[in-house]
C-alpha cells in the first residue's frame, strides 16, 4: 500500500532554473518493514527518493514550468514486496491527478529471477529468495525507459527475457492506472 500524494507548486528558493524541478520525499512508516535501526530506514528512504525522482523526471514536462518546484511526498504504509515499483507507479498517477502535464504515465514493475524462473511483481518472500532483480520504470506508450536497476548476475538471454516481461507488465499497469484516473475524473465531474 502506498499513500496518496499531494504535489504542489511552490516558489523555488534555490536560485533560478529554467526548467521545473521535482522534489521527492519518501517516508516509510515505522511498521512498514522490519528494519533494524533509524539510520537504515533513513538510508532506504533516501535511496527510494532518489530512484523516484529519476523515474519521474523524464515524464514530467518540466520545461513548461520554469522556476517551479513540485513537491512529491510519498509514504509507504506497508512494504509487501516490490515497493519501489509501486511507489513510482503511484507517484506518477498522483502527478497526473494533480494536473501536471506529463509526456506519459510512468509505470514500474519489478521482476526477480528465482531458481531460473522469472517472476513478475514478487512478494516479500519471493524478493528475499531471488538471485537477481530488475526494476524497470517506463512510459509504456512510447516504450521509453525512465529508470532501471538491475542486481545480480544475468545471462544474456535472461536479461532480454526479463526486460520484455517487465515492459509487458508496465503496459498492463499503465492501462489499469489510466482507467483508475479516468474513473476518478468522471466521478469528480459528476459530483460538481
Amino acid at each position, binding site marked *: *500500500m502506498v*499513500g*496518496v*500524494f*499531494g504535489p*504542489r507548486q511552490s516558489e523555488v528558493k534555490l536560485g533560478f532554473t529554467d526548467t521545473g524541478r521535482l*522534489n521527492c*520525499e519518501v*517516508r516509510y*512508516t*515505522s*511498521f*512498514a*518493514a*522490519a528494519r533494524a535501526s533509524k539510520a537504515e530506514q533513513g538510508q532506504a528512504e533516501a535511496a527510494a527518493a532518489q530512484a523516484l525522482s529519476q523515474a519521474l523526471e523524464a515524464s514530467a514536462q518540466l520545461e513548461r514550468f520554469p522556476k517551479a518546484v513540485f*513537491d512529491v*511526498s510519498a*509514504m509507504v*504504509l*506497508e*512494504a*509487501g514486496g516490490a515497493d519501489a515499483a509501486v511507489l513510482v507507479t503511484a507517484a506518477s498517477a498522483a502527478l497526473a491527478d494533480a494536473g501536471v502535464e506529463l509526456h506519459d504515465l510512468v509505470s514500474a514493475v519489478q521482476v526477480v529471477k528465482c531458481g531460473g524462473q522469472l517472476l513478475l511483481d514478487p512478494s516479500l518472500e519471493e524478493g528475499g529468495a531471488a538471485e537477481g532483480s530488475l526494476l524497470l520504470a517506463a512510459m509504456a506508450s512510447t516504450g521509453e525507459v525512465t529508470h532501471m536497476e538491475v542486481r545480480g548476475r544475468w545471462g544474456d538471454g535472461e536479461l532480454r527475457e526479463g526486460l520484455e516481461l517487465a515492459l509487458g507488465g508496465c503496459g498492463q499497469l499503465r492501462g489499469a492506472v489510466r482507467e483508475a484516473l479516468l474513473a476518478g475524473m468522471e466521478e469528480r465531474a459528476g459530483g*460538481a
Partner: protein
Amino acid sequence: MASTSTTATVADDVEAEAFKRLYPEQFFDRFLGEGVRPDGRPLGRARAVTIGAGAITSADGSALVKVGRTSVLAGVRLELIRPDETTPGQGQLALNVELAPFSSPDYRPGRSATDAVSGVVEKLQAALLSGKDTVLLNTLCVAEGKAAWKAQLDVYVLDADGCVTDAVLLASIAALRNTRLPLVRNTKEGNYVPARRAEEGAAGLVEGCPRSVGLGRCPLALTCCLYKQHVLVDPTADEERLAECAVTVVVDQGGRLQGVYKAGGKVLADAATLLKCTEAARLRHKELSGLLEQSLQMGAEAAAER
C-alpha cells in the same frame, strides 16, 4: 441553448467558489442560517466513520480510520524488553504521532512533522496513559522483572480534514485492541524471545503469557466547534479554521469524562454548551464503539484465515 445554460452553471460554480474564498464568513453564515453545513450535514451530525482494524499485515496491530475525509493510520510494533527497575511488573507503551507531508496544505517541509500535532500527542498521552487504568501496562508483562513487551504505537495522519484528535484516538484504541501478543519462549540461555508460529506448543514456552493488550476503559474523543451561537459537531478543517474555537471532549464507555479541552478562541462556552458537547460525545461513543467491535471482529477473522 444548451451550451448557454452550461456556461451559466459553470459561471455560478465559479462564483460560489470565489464567494467562499473571498467572504468565508458570509458564505458560512448563509449555510448556518439554514441549519445546514457546507457539506450538507445538519449542525449536530458527525461524519461517517470507517474503521479497518488489521489494515497493515506487517504490523503487530494496526487500524486505518477514516472520519469523513480525515484518515489516520495507527500501527503497533512490539519488542521484548527488560522492564524498568522501578516498575518490574509493567511493560511500556510509547506513543508517536506524525503528520504525513501531504496531509494538510499547512504542512511545510523542514518543520518538524511532530510539531504541528503536539497537542494531539499530548491529549493521546493523557487519554491512554495518565488514567493508570486505560492501558493496563501490567498486561504487557511476560515475566516479572525479566521480560515485558514494549509497544511502540505510531500514528500517521494521512489526511487532516478536521478532528484529527478524535480520529487519532480512535485509531490508537483500535490498533491496540487489534494487537496480538505472540507467545514467548524461554531459551536455554535464559533469554526470552518471541516464539514463531510453528513453535506454538513447543517446549520452553512461558506459561500464561499475555495475548492481548489490556484496556481498562475505552476513551474516545469528539470535537465540537463553537461558531457564534452554533455548536458544530465533528467539524471539517475549513470549519475549524473559521470557527477558531473548538471543544474536545474525551469520554469512556461508561459516560465518564476523561478530558475536556478548550483552547481559548473567540467564543466563550458556558456550562450549558459544555454539557451539550459532553452529551454529543457520549452519543458518538455509543455509535463508534459498535463500529469498533464490528471492525475488530472482522479483523480477527481475517487474521485467523491467514
